[in-house]
Each structure stands twice: as C-alpha cells, then as structure tokens.
C-alpha cells in the first residue's frame, strides 16, 4: 500500500514542554483520515511538522514520498493546507487571496474556483480585514479545494462555518475522495469525522492512543444491548465481557465488549427475545473513554503529590 503520509516516532519539544511524545501516523493514499483530539493535544504541531514549518526533534516523516523539511517546492505543489486559524492580508480581497495562494501552489482550476465561490456563498470582493471568521475560513477552503493537489491537510476546517456551510464542506470532501485525493482531517467535531473519515486516529497528550477504521475501534469498545425476555434471565452477568447488567422485570440491559456479542445474543435468545435493541458505541463514547481515562490518571497523579 502506498502511503500519502507516514510518520514514525515523531517527537517535538518546545523548551521544557513536550508537545509530541512519539507520534506514529500512517495515511494510505486516497483515504480520508480523521485526526481527532481536543485542543492542545498536538494536532496542529503534527501538521506543522508534516508541512515542514517545524522540524521534529526525533522520528522520521514522509509526505507524498518526500521529506517535508527538504523537498518543500516539490511537495507543496501537490498539497494544500487550511490552517485552523485563518489570517488574511487586510488589504487583499478574498478573491485575490484565493488566486494568489492557488498560483503559489502551482495553479488552480478556474471552473472549480467559480463553483466553490458559488457554493460557499462567498463575496470575493471584500477586503481581508472585513471578513468574519467563517468567511475567512471559506477563503482558505476555496483556495485549497480549487487547487489540483493530491493531498489536502485541513486543520479544524469547519470552525466558524454555519451548519449549511458545514454541509457544503462535507460534500466537497466526499467529492475530493471520489477524485482520489487524500485528506487529513484534523478535528474535534466527532460527528464530522464519523461522517467523512474512512479511518481515524485519536491523539492525546502527544501520543496516538487509538487508530483504525470506525468499526475497528468499535470492536475495541462496548455495545449497549437491551432486551425484553420471555423468561427470567439469571446468569447474564456471569458471561465474560458483560458489564453494568440491569434487570427490571422482564427487561434486561447491559454493556457488552463488542467481540463478545455472540455468546450474549445466544444467551438472550435461549431466554426468548421479545424485543431487542442494540446500539454500537458512538465515536463520542470512544473519545470520552480515552479522555476520561486521561483525566482520571491525571487526577490520581495529582492526589499522590
């Protein structure tokens, strides 16, 4: 498999603080890869290393087969970047900024540019300083999406966009994938990643703590099951991988480790299922599980001191 992005053991320190403590990231070409984590987890630092804006203290990194620190000109013709905090030149109009950034990247598709300006409902004649946050974001998005590039690096691209524009953005990403482009989508908006990403990874305190497809990650987590049974069901709690059993008359509910679902369903059908509801873990639950674990550990650390 060819990788658009491949990073191993990336470490980055700023003075005494360690921003990245060994990031491993592999994004196959043609995939939309969700890069999840809260503010300050190291998403932006990782991206800035991928773009050659920062130099890693340790580890290796390859973007589109090149070294982002050395092969700037060649690589940057093939990728487009939307920063999380878009700052425009106050005296340049939005349209001028789109054209400029596109041309500096090696040209942009005029037809697509016009379409995007239309779809995002941007007034390209306004000066940079008069745009709102959402409109500044649109300028950077249009400049990136209208460029003919293989890789889109997007750092929280929908911050400041209203729900309608978020929808337009989602369509654009779906189209980009159909065209065979690779997308690295850093975000803390779970619904967005859930909808768009083929695979995702979760970063916490400078480390990747989870990576895989959404269903891979779900297997690692617990599914919630609720059933109305014909016969009383003692012994559910004794099955391996079953937690939080609640019995309320004929209704039982529990959390089950997803790879242990089979025996649980067999047990339930032995007791005569009348109704069955099963809910896979949401991304939010996956996410919170990691972060709760983190804060609990931190609290324990604090308690020891």
């Amino acid at each position: 498999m060819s990788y658009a992005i491949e990073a191993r053991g990336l470490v980055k320190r700023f003075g005494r603080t360690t921003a990245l403590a060994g990031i491993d990231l592999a994004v196959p070409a043609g995939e939309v890869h969700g890069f999840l984590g809260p503010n300050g987890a190291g998403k932006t630092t990782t991206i800035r290393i991928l773009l050659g804006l920062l130099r890693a203290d340790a580890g290796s990194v390859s973007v589109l087969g090149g070294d982002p620190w050395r092969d700037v000109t060649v690589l940057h013709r093939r990728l487009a970047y939307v920063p999380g905090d878009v700052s425009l030149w106050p005296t340049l109009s939005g349209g001028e900024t789109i054209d400029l950034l596109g041309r500096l990247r090696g040209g942009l598709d005029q037809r697509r540019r016009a379409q995007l300006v239309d779809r995002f409902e941007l007034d390209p004649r306004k000066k940079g300083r008069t745009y709102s946050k959402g409109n500044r974001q649109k300028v950077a998005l249009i400049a990136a999406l209208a460029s003919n590039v293989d890789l889109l690096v997007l750092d929280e691209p929908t911050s400041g966009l209203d729900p309608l524009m978020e929808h337009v953005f989602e369509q654009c990403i779906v189209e980009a994938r159909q065209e065979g482009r690779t997308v690295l989508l850093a975000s803390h908006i779970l619904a967005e990643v859930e909808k768009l990403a083929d695979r995702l990874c979760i970063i916490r305190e400078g480390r990747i703590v989870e990576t895989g497809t959404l269903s891979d990650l779900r297997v690692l987590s617990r599914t919630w099951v609720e059933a109305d049974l014909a016969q009383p069901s003692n012994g559910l709690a004794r099955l391996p991988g079953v937690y939080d059993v609640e019995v309320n008359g004929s209704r039982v509910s529990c959390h089950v480790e997803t790879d242990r679902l089979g025996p649980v369903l067999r047990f339930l059908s032995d007791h005569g299922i009348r109704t069955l509801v099963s809910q896979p873990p949401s991304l939010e639950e996956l996410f919170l599980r990691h972060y709760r674990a983190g804060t609990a550990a931190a609290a324990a650390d604090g308690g020891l001191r």
Partner: protein
Amino acid sequence: MTALAGTRALAGLAFRRDRIILLAWVLLAGGVVASTASSIRGLYTTLAERQQYAATVGANPASAVLGGPGFGLPNLGGIIVAEMGSVLLALVAVAGILLVVRYTRTEEETGRAELLGSAAVGRQARLAGALLVVGGAELVIGIATSALLIGYGLPVAGSVAFGLAVTGAGWVFAGVAAVAAQVEEHARTAGGGAAAVFGLAFILRAVGDASAAAHTGGFLPSLSWMSPLGWALEVRAYGGERWWVLALPLTVAVALASTAAALGTRRDIGAGLIRARPGRSEAWPSLASAWALAWRLQRGSLIGWTAGVAVGAGVFGAIAHDIRDMMGADTGAARVMADLGGSGTLVDSYLAWVLGLTGIAAAASGVGAVLRLRSEETGLRAEPVLATAVTRWRWAASHLATAGLGIVAVLVASGLVVGLVHGLRGGDVAHELPRILVGALVQVPAALVLAGVAMALFGVAPRLSSAAWPAVVAALAIGQLGGLLRLNRWLIDVSPFTHVSRVPGHEVTPAPLVWLLVIAVLLTSAGLMRFRRRDLT
C-alpha cells in the same frame, strides 16, 4: 455616565499591559532633557558664548528649521529649548499617536474590543481609557521635563512653561490619533494619517520659523501659529513666558477628543467612517509570486516613505542657499555644523548633514520593510504562503528586496529633490544635482547595514526583532549628539553612518562603503541561513 462605565478598568488594563513601554517613553524623554541640559550647560558657560550662539545660530533660518524661533535666547534655557525642542516634541507626538492607536483601533481590529464591549463597558470607555493613560503619560513627561530643567538650575517659570508646552503638544497629537482611529478602519492607516498630520505640523512650523528668521515678511512667518508644534515654542519659555498660549493646545486637544467621541457614536464597532472600498473579485495575473505579494504589501509604505522623506529633505534643502549669508565663516554655529556635516564649506557641510538625516530615514524605512517578515510570521500570514511551493529563502528574499529597493528609492528621491531645489535657488542645477545625488547615494550601504541588523535579528532571535528600531535611534543619536556629548570614539564608530563620506564637501572614500556593504551582506546572510533552519512561530 453609563457611556463611560468601565473606563477605569480599561485604563488600568492598558497601564498594566504596557507599563514597561510607558516607562520607556518617559525615560527616553527624560534622557533627552537631561543629556542636552547637562551638555549645553557645560558648553556655554559665559554670557559672551551664549550671545554668540544667539547671534549666529539663533538668527539663522537654517537652524530655525529644527531649533525654532529661539525666543529664550541668549538665556541658557533658550539654547536648551532650541537644541532639543524639536526632538522632545516629536517624541511626545509620536508616543501619543502610537499609544492612542494601539489602545483604540488596534483593539478593535484584533477583536479584543468586541470581547470587552460585550461586558459592562460603556460606549466611550475605550476612548476615554486610552486618552486617560496616554494623557497621563504625556503629563508625566511634561512634569519630568520641568523638574529636570529646574534641577539643572534653570528658572522655575520657564521650566514649568516648557514642560506644560511639551505636554500640550502631546495631548494635541493624542487627540489627532483619537480622531484618526475613529475615521480609519485599519490601525496602520489611522497611525499613518495621524503621522501625516504631524509631518504637516512640522513643515508648517519649520517654514514659518525659517521665514521669520529670514525676515521675509508677508504671511509666511504666521504659518508657525497654524502648527501645534509652533504653539509649544510660542509659549516663549525662558523668554518672557506667554502663559495664555498654553490655552491653545488645551482647547484643541479637548475639541479633538470630543470630536472623536462624537464620531465614535456614529459607527459600528470595528467599522470606520471611511468604508473600505470593495476589491477585485479576481487577482491580476501578475499577483502570482512571493515577489508580487511582497511588493503588493509593501508598496504603500514604500511610496509613503519616499515621498515623505523627499518632501522633508526638500524643505531643509530649500534654505541651504541662505546659510552662507546667515553664518559667519568661523562661528560657533559653523563649528557645530562642521561637526555634523564635515569640514567643507558651510553650505556643503549643511547639505551633507541633511543628506545624512535622509540616510537615517532610509534606514528606518528599510528596517520597517524587513520587520514586515516578523509581523507576517506572528500574524499567521507567513504559514499559508510557506505551505505553498514558496521556499523560505524566496519568501524572505522577496521582502528583503523590497526593503533594499525602498532604501534606494528614498535616497534617490531625496537626492534629486534636494539637488533640484538647491540647484534652482543657486541657478546651477547642472553642478549641484550630481554631487548632491552622490551625497545621498553614499548613504545606501550604511542604511543597508541597519536593515541587515533587522534581518539578522529576525533569523537568529525572532522575538527580539523589534530591537532593530533602537539601533536606528542609536545611529541617529550618535550622529547628531555624538560630537556635542563628546562620546567615546569607539561608541561613535559603532554607527555605520559614522563611516560614510560627508558629500558634498569631501571626496567619496570607497573603502568604508565597500566594507559597509560587506557587513550588510554578512548580517543578511546570517539571518537568512538561520531563518531557513529555525521553527516557524
């Protein structure tokens, strides 16, 4: 008083945030007053020496351009006012403009004002808080000036009058900046507009005072009364104080502040009274490279510097012709002039001095252009460009090229204007223009060295980039005061401008110019090489 609710809190915030900067301005002003007062007191000890100063420097249109009308002469206080008045007034005016714009329009531009505006803060509180802090700082500068002058044994009445006059001028320009910040949507434009008013005020006073000294008659001498800088000197400190003149800056400052407040109620937060015109929906085909972007971003200030310095130099150059008539060959004034401009004929040393000042101004324009790299970096506008196919080298080089171009443009324009004006007055353009142009061009390498210092700082110690400005001020101070204050030779040699040939009046010595160029190239390369290897912040 709900419109003013929160004023004290905002003033406190500004004071807390900028206490170091505010203190620096006060110390800088105090330093100018103390160093001038002590050196003048040592130089002009007898009445005869002071009378000679009054008869030569005081009666001379050329020195009236900087020194003013010299009302307090031949008193010691009068000499001190003539020597440092313009510098001190420029200092309070610039401080007032920079700080007021910083607390008003910059706050709106960054959106911080909005954050505070949604809290329990009155509509006029930001403006009131800004004027309170800045007006207070100007008052402290005035009081410090009076106290220092009294401390050096000068008459109390004159010292108090001059201190108040300095504060008054500061207040007027704080008011000008407050109005500009309401009218303009953009802090840079607001500051530029207020600075243009200062430039106009300086030219009006310079022309007025020079005309008065040359006894031209007519309306020209009265131009000084149209300038807030003129009022400060018309107070006649140490020359029979006219206290009522102080009412002028006070009235105008209050009027300007009220105007700003009235304008502030007529616009939305973040907006200006002058609406930004819409731009192009598509870029010109030429806007397609890092060079084109740097030129687009810098051309406005480059044209502003070139025109401003050329006009200022033209005003100075226009009176060069009168120097011969006004100064004797071997007077104290001539010695001072020779100190500043070299030991050619009096007119030549004056011209060389004027061209030296344009050299410093060119260096300032160059430093400003180089430091644009830093403001682009911290403003997060460098990142999107460097994430395209533009290399760091090309990006930095594009701004460096505009800086170099600006330095050359400022000096060529100044040389041409001074050469033409002086040549036309003497009726010998063909002789004057080339040698004056050469006198301007020899400044280029020294100005490039200071721009190189800015680049080296940007590459090696980006957080300290703005330390390049004190370097420019130091070069100015060493050039103008080095001889007067009898500074250590080693210290004087630090300024690149010390090594520039004084043309016209002397031959061009190429060796130091070559050395300066080499140093400029080395500094710039060091900055570039380090920048290519460092993290972007």
